[in-house]
């Protein structure tokens, strides 16, 4: 365990040192990440300002969902999302071999060597919007609701990790395809809005087959006391989704040929 923590810390140290070589660019990127994530709250705000709304949801409830998404992203992305870019480049160059000969789990090493501090802006933006939304909602949130939120939030991180494994795993075969990001961005957009705007069939799809709703909707629903019994099935699906994505990653790793592309 101590060995694993040491590897992680040295990965963070190296990542920070290399990123700080271009400090100006780093600060701009941090701001860009934050502004980019504020895009969806801005669109929501413009929709509500035009007099329209999502039926049954007020502005601050929708902002709360989007804030949870940003926080989940702001926590998970610095720690493991960078592995998609890392694997994309290393497989394309054929230098992933160097990762394979390290004396530790290849998956763990791929994660810890991909630390990217840039995404931390999402976390701070998300927390700010969360506070703003809660202050305007003026609802009392019980301790149970906060605990439910934390549990579901942990599953949100698990879903994001699962997507990262699927995306990076794909790149062992689909060499150099930087468009996997677009696929994830498109899929995850469904988690930014209340589940009830989708058709029943689609709600079932994003809750019980590909648990996208767990990324932000369910944790936010816990704070708003809007959880339904379906969340228990969704939790089970999240665990299965993670196991499948992990197995998929190792299966795809076998396709690595060292040839680049």
């Amino acid at each position: 365990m101590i060995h694993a923590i040491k590897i992680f810390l040295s990965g963070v140290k190296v990542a920070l040192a290399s990123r700080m070589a271009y400090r100006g660019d780093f600060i701009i990127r941090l701001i860009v990440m934050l502004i980019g994530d504020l895009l969806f709250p801005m669109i929501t705000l413009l929709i509500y300002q035009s007099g329209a709304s999502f039926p049954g949801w007020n502005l601050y409830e929708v902002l709360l969902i989007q804030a949870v998404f940003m926080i989940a992203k702001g926590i998970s992305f610095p720690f493991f999302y960078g592995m998609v870019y890392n694997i994309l480049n290393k497989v394309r160059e054929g230098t992933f071999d160097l990762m394979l000969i390290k004396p530790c789990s290849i998956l763990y090493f791929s994660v810890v060597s991909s630390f990217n501090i840039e995404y931390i802006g999402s976390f701070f933006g998300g927390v700010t919007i969360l506070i703003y939304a809660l202050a305007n909602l003026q609802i009392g949130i019980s301790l149970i609701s906060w605990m439910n939120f934390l549990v579901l939030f942990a599953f949100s991180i698990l879903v994001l990790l699962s997507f990262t494994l699927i995306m990076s795993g794909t790149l062992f075969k689909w060499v150099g395809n930087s468009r996997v990001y677009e696929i994830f961005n498109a899929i995850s957009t469904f988690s930014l809005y209340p589940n009830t705007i989708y058709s029943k069939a689609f709600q079932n799809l994003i809750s019980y087959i590909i648990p996208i709703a767990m990324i932000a909707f369910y944790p936010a629903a816990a704070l708003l006391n809007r959880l339904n019994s379906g969340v228990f099935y969704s939790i089970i699906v999240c665990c299965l989704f993670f196991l499948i994505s992990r197995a998929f990653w190792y299966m795809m790793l076998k396709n690595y040929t060292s040839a680049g592309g």
Partner: protein
Amino acid sequence: MLRTIKGVAFATYKEWAAYRSHMLVSLFVGPLYFLVQYYIWSSVYTGQDLINGFSLIQMLTYYGITTLINYCIMDFAGWNLQMLIRTGRFITFMLRPVSHRLFAFSQKIGHRMLGFCLELLPVYLVFTIAFDIHLIPANILWSILSIFLGFMMMFLVNYCIGITGFWLTRTDGIRSIILLFRNVFAGVFIPLTFFPELLQKILFFLPFQYISYVPVRVFIGDYQLGGMEFTIAQIVGIQAIYVIMMLLLSELMWRKGIKKFTGVGA
């Protein structure tokens, strides 16, 4: 010049055809984004016929056309140029008997020709068949002209961003921030008429709306922004003037920037 454009465009077409599966991602991503918009706006329009002058059908048409036009005008000239400058590989272009801007523009033509076949046409069919959205231009000639000017504008804006690489060692950050503003203020995410009126008036004078918003409105057949209304001929004329101004700006930046190039990379 035409021979150069044809030669480079064809070479780029063949080069990218080797990565056609990358482009086919659009077949999944485009309709998926549209599906999100479909659900969002179908829900928002519950009990309302018009929002900011758009009916539900017009709003879905707006997003459908925006998606397709973006396949026409998509561009990576800025990224490419700053990469060449940063790595020092740009030196090879200094020795070629052709301007880099023309070379990059020809590359874009080749790349988008492939995009037309592998992205635009299939996604158009998906929109028509799966979503029952019929995207027919109000006036085909004005639409083609406006999309072509949007194509030029997108290239020139991106190219100017790329030129900043002569001054900045790494332009990833500045490029990302401009690209983000470009997409927001080009009306890619939401029609510009949703913005506050004062901002709409400011946006009229920025180059971004001429990339996507104007071609989309020309496609639909009417134009308005910030309380201003123009005929299609007038707004396409203004778009052409902005393209010429952007061309001059890129030339000016180029002449200043090229003096900074040392050829050693960074």
